[in-house]
Each structure stands twice: as C-alpha cells, then as structure tokens.
C-alpha cells in the first residue's frame, strides 16, 4: 500500500489522544475521516505530516519508513481549515511559493503556476492580494499552493469548515476534479457526514482517538455509530 500507518499512539499530559492507529491507503485514493471535534483527527494528521512526534508506531510512505524524516522532506502537505495565505504575497506568488523554495527555474514556475491558475478557475486574479479574494477563492489558492508542489500525500483538515453551504458544495466538486486531474492521494478530515461520503473513495470514523476504516460505503452507512441512519430517519420523518 502507498500509505501504511501502524500502531501509532500519542498522549498529551497522560491523556491518550490517538490510540493504536492502523490503516492503509492506496495511491491516488482519498480516505475521508469523519469525527467529532476533539476526537484526535488533527493530531493524527499532524503525526502523519511530521509536525507532531508520536509516542509509538510507524509510518510507511511508498514503502519507505518516514518516522525520522523531517516535515520539509516528507513531501506531505498539511492544509489547515484556515487557508493561511501569505498576506504579503499576491495569488501568483502564493501559488508559486513552494516551487520557489525548491529553487525551480523562473520560466518553469511561471508555466506551472499559470496552468494551476487555469485548473483552479482563477484566471485574471493573479495580481490580487489575499484580502481582495472571497473565502472560496482563498481556499482555491491554498489548494493550488499545496498541489503545485506535487506532494506524495495531501492532508486536509476540515478545509471547507469555514465556507458557506453553496461555496462549500462548489469547492467539493472542484476538489474531486482536481484530485482526479493531479492523481492526488489524500486524507480528508471532516465532521460533516455528507462531505465524508462525497469526498472519500474510502471512509473512516474516528472516535476518542480510535479510527475505524470501513470496507465499503454501505458498511459505513449501516453502522449505528456513524449517525448516518439517524440522518436518514430525520429526512424521512420530514417527508411523512
């Protein structure tokens, strides 16, 4: 498997936040992880991204053990709920940031950034500063900045959490298209039931630091813990 997470555990001040985390993910697939606030989702992502050191366990990426690899060398990009665009750089410069750091030549950067801007449907916005963009546009720039570096794995921590319903739906479509176009492997964390089902090729449910990955979407829907059945009953109740 492309990503293998084995027996990861992590505690903060004697409180076990991540408990014996085990899962695998094939290349170019998205695993969406559903869970309530404070269940350990963010800690799990930060451990995989190398930003938090686990107390135990191993992570393999493309067959290589990456436990001791620093975040800048993991080729894993972590995207926060907040877009975190660099306020002193315009759209073009924000997207080009990761390439400039890797000292790629200027003409290649220009070509790749323009290609990305077209894919993100941001033509004509290149010179705008972050404060001149809408929430959806900002999130698109944030995606572009991450994807353009060709990361082996993309970690998305509730990326659409701060968007309104309409923008959120459009961003979900855009992400699906971009993920397919750039053959992205990703972990997509959300606390939105519908989003989890829509975004993932596979679905996991995290509760009190334990992650359960379901064999199929049907088994996820059937499980009472996930709350899908309650949701279905609610909508059925309205139509009666």
């Amino acid at each position, binding site marked *: 498997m492309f990503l293998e997470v084995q027996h990861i555990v992590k505690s903060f001040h004697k409180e076990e936040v991540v408990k014996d985390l085990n899962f695998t993910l094939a290349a170019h697939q998205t695993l969406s992880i559903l869970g309530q606030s404070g269940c350990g989702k963010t800690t799990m992502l*930060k451990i995989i*991204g*190398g*930003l938090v050191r686990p107390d135990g366990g191993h992570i393999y990426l493309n067959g290589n053990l990456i436990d001791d690899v*620093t*975040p*800048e*060398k*993991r*080729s*894993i*990009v*972590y995207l*926060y709920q*907040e877009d*975190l665009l*660099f*306020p*002193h750089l315009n759209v073009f410069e924000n997207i080009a*940031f*990761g390439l400039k*750091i*890797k000292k790629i030549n200027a003409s290649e950067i220009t070509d790749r950034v323009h290609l990305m801007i077209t894919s993100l449907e941001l033509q004509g916005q290149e010179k705008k500063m972050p404060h001149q963009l809408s929430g959806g546009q900002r999130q698109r720039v944030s995606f572009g*900045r*991450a994807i353009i*570096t060709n*990361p082996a794995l993309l970690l998305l921590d509730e990326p659409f959490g701060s968007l309104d319903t309409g923008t959120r739906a459009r961003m979900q479509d855009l992400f699906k298209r971009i993920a397919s176009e750039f053959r992205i492997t990703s972990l997509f964390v959300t606390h939105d039931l519908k989003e989890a089902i829509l975004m993932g090729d596979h679905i996991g449910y995290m509760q009190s630091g334990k992650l359960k990955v379901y064999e199929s979407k049907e088994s996820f829907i059937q499980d009472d813990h996930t709350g899908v059945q309650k949701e279905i009953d609610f909508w059925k109740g309205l139509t009666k």
Partner: protein
Amino acid sequence: MKRTITLLTYFPYILAPVVFAACLSYFFLKLGLFGKPVGVFVAQFMVAFPYALIFFSSFWGEKTKSYEELVATLGGNQWQAFRKVLLPIAKNMLVICFFQTFLISWFEYGLTSIIGVGKVQTLTIKVFLFIKESNFYYGALSCRLLILPPVLLLYINKRYVFNKLI
C-alpha cells in the same frame, strides 16, 4: 518558562523609573557602568526591550506557528519560514515597535539621569537643565530639537506604514 519571562518584562513598568534605576545602581556600580554612555545604553535597553517583547507577545501565537508548520510541509526550512514569511508579515509591526521604543528611550529622564549621574547628558536631560537654570532660549531651542526626530518618525510611519494598514 515563557510565563516567567513574560512576567519579568512587566517589571520595569511596575516600578517608577527612578526606583528602578536605584535598584539597578548597585549592579551598574559593580560592573563599572555607572556614569558611562554604555551604562545609559544598557539601562535604556532594559526598559525598551521588555516593551518590544510585550508588543510582540500577541504575534507569537497559534497562527504564526501554523505558518511555520505550513512552510515546513511545503518544503521550507525554519530560516526560509522566518525570512520569507514571518519577517515580511511582521514588517509593519517592527516599524511601529521601533518607533515606540525609540520614543521611550528618547524621552527617558529618571533612569538616564541616575545611571548617567550627570556625566551622560541626553537632549531630554539638557531640556530639564535649561529649564532649571531658567535659560529660556536654550530651553526653547532644545525642546524644538527634542521634538524633531519623533515628528520625522511620525511622518514616515503615517506615510509608509499606517496608510498601508488601513
């Protein structure tokens, strides 16, 4: 550790400058800094630097940490995060902080007069001397000179910093 340092930064502002200077006198005497320009420089640094730390305490929050982490996952090292992201983001704050700490030092009287023991004379101390001596002409002239640098800095700040912030 961070809490202790933060608490210490307020120390120069809890005490009156003269009392603070009296507390420092013993150590400055021991170190041979009393009545020397270096001594006054160190004393003023001990007032201005904590102010700068307090001023920047809100900057070093979760968001700044997130920026650093983001740069790391994009392939950048700590130096690149500092030079290409944190420093440009903090640029305006740095200019304002410089302006304010300059004013603190520029108008400092109590601490400077005690540590400098009259041998190190700043323009602010001179103004007080001229007024005490009823030397109105020099007093007025030095007051004008005293206000020049702050006015110049205020103009630069308004022209290049505040207007960009709004």
